[in-house]
């Protein structure tokens, strides 16, 4: 697992070097070094480095405007980088875009198709473009679109439209699938349905490069995530690693008043925070759990909703992006 924290100078560079070395030994299908892209004065992507191994689901996370789409478009070969090196399946995406596109599948942000074409016709159209013989029925089944096979694209729901994109990404038996915010704007059920299709890609051994701003999505699907903000990668590693490194692995939360907050603050050798009536007590060690519960029980102060929680990737993301905003990370 590799972590890149901006502002740590030599340590960060060493970690990147090690990451590159380990990925050379493994099977890196995407290698990015010192990649930069600016629009006028705005640095959309600022000297980022990472690599993606064959068969893994790699997610690029970040708030809107972080530089995710620019990065993924450079990897797809539809946008030219200003500086740096990019290799996808051993090819330069800008110079060898035509060869690369035969080997990758892409669902761009806000995927669309011809309004008056059906999902079956869309698959057959792509099959002709890629010069492949495909079983349209099989692909429709894989993306759970059999019932809408003959419905015009304009009449499909948002989730079904994204599934058409997933179906088209399967037509050329792509080695890498680039999915740029594939579930944005979808309802929870449609999102889960898309997730199951992405998981089936992973089971087939395909590499998936996912950009999203849904943290739960990344946490569930990804082997590794890179968190991006203001054009820089501020953290990189597996979801578990990032949570353990940047989050509090466990914490007790309860609903209580100022008396309880004051009592806990004075009584325990622990950090306590309170916000909107919710008191939060991070646990440094497992043995602290019993100690804190005993304290609360013996306080005699009324409380409710006591629960034990673990930080999620979302908590880590908010914390990291917040720290960058406050200048702790540069």
């Amino acid at each position, binding site marked *: 697992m590799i972590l890149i924290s901006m502002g740590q100078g030599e340590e960060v560079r060493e970690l990147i070097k090690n990451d590159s070395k380990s990925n050379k030994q493994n099977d890196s299908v995407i290698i990015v070094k010192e990649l930069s892209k600016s629009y006028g004065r705005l640095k959309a992507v600022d000297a980022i480095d990472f690599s993606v191994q064959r068969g893994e689901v790699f997610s690029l996370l970040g708030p809107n405007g972080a530089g995710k789409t620019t990065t993924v478009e450079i990897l797809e070969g*539809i*946008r030219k980088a200003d500086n740096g090196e990019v290799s996808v399946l051993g090819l330069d995406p800008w110079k060898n875009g*035509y060869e690369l*596109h035969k080997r*990758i599948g*892409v669902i761009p942000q806000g995927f*669309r198709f011809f309004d*008056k*074409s059906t999902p079956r016709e869309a698959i057959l159209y792509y099959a002709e473009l890629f010069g492949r013989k495909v079983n349209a029925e099989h692909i429709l089944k894989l993306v759970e679109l059999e019932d809408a096979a003959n419905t015009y694209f304009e009449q499909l729901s948002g989730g079904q439209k994204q599934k058409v994109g997933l179906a088209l990404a399967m037509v050329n038996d792509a080695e890498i699938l680039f999915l740029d915010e594939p579930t944005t704007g979808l309802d929870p059920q449609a999102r889960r349905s898309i997730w199951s299709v992405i998981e089936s890609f992973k089971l087939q051994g395909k590499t998936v490069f996912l950009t999203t701003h849904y943290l739960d999505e990344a946490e569930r699907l990804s082997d590794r995530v890179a968190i991006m903000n203001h054009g820089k990668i501020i953290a990189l590693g597996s979801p578990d690693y990032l949570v353990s490194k940047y989050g509090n692995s466990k914490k007790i939360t309860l609903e209580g008043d100022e008396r309880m907050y004051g009592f806990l603050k004075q009584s325990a050798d622990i950090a306590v925070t309170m916000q909107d009536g919710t008191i939060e007590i991070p646990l440094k060690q497992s043995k602290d759990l019993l100690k804190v519960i005993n304290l609360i029980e013996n306080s005699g102060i009324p409380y409710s909703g006591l629960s034990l929680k673990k930080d999620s990737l979302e908590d880590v993301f908010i914390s990291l992006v917040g720290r960058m905003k406050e200048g702790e990370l540069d």
Partner: protein
Amino acid sequence: MNLRRILADFSVFRREYLRNKEGFFFALVFPVILILLFGAIFSGNNHSPINVYALNEDNGPMGSSFLNVLNQTGAIKVILAPSGSVFPDYLLKNSYSQGILIPSNFSYSIHSGGKASVIIYSNPADTSTQIVTGVINSVAEAFNLKLSNSSNFITIVQKSVNESSPSYIDFLIPGLIGFTVLTSPMFSMVNLSAEYKKSKFFKQLSLTPLTKGEWLASKIIWYVMISLISFVLMTATGTLLFGANVQITAWVLPFVILGSLLFVSLGMLVGTITKSIESAGVIGNIITFPMMFLSGTFFPLSIMPSWLARIAHIFPLYYIIDGLTATMVYDNLRSALIDLSIIALICLMLSIAAVKAFKWREE
């Protein structure tokens, strides 16, 4: 260029176009409606006579004779107003725009060697005024000659420039073919290019093996086909229903093919260089509508003021219609080839500009 991919893209575009009722209507049905409409209005020699209201106050026979001769011309149908009515009031009250008043002393003035008058009431805004005035003048002239015992020294024999006597419908067919060659690609490509650019659909297509050239080729093939179908429909309608006499020659093809390429390129250029779908539509209309009306599509340039007819020469559609008319109506290959050369040159410039402006990927 890969033919399989061009045909695949052509097929999906054709389906999209035909399933879209508006596109189908404007591409194939609308031009036929136009030819039916204009053909019905302007074609054939069986024009109805123009109704002209007359009040004959003459006490003698000459007034009646004059009106009878007017009726016999076939160009005018004289309808008598009730005697005793105040004629201008009568015309106004009934919204009649043409009237003839024969004064009470008409016969007397003629017999006594004085000057007799016929008073014509007319509305200058009415396009038939000139015809009515012309017919009345001719009849009055004939009466003058007869009464002075003179004879016609000069007679006029009217012949058509072409032996086969081209009629309005013969000129309308090349005009409306030009209309289809212009409007089908322009209206569609302006909107489509602007919309595909905004929705990043071009980027999406660029991620397939389809190339920019193949995408363009499929659009050109489609619009050439639309124009050819439209050519067949309009020529058949004009010939069968209105007796149009036009030549169907292979020289029509280069005009239709280059014309389609020209307006696909122009439409793409407008859609690509404008910033929004709305502004693309406005600029597309600003280019299309004046070109449509001033290039001799519906009316020959000869009826326009000379300065306006000169402006028509800046529009590429003028050369398409002029060339089609030269080859279909006059069989004048030399003139058609000059037009074709001009079209080829404009086409080359616009195609290069469109391909340069059209970005499949972004720098």
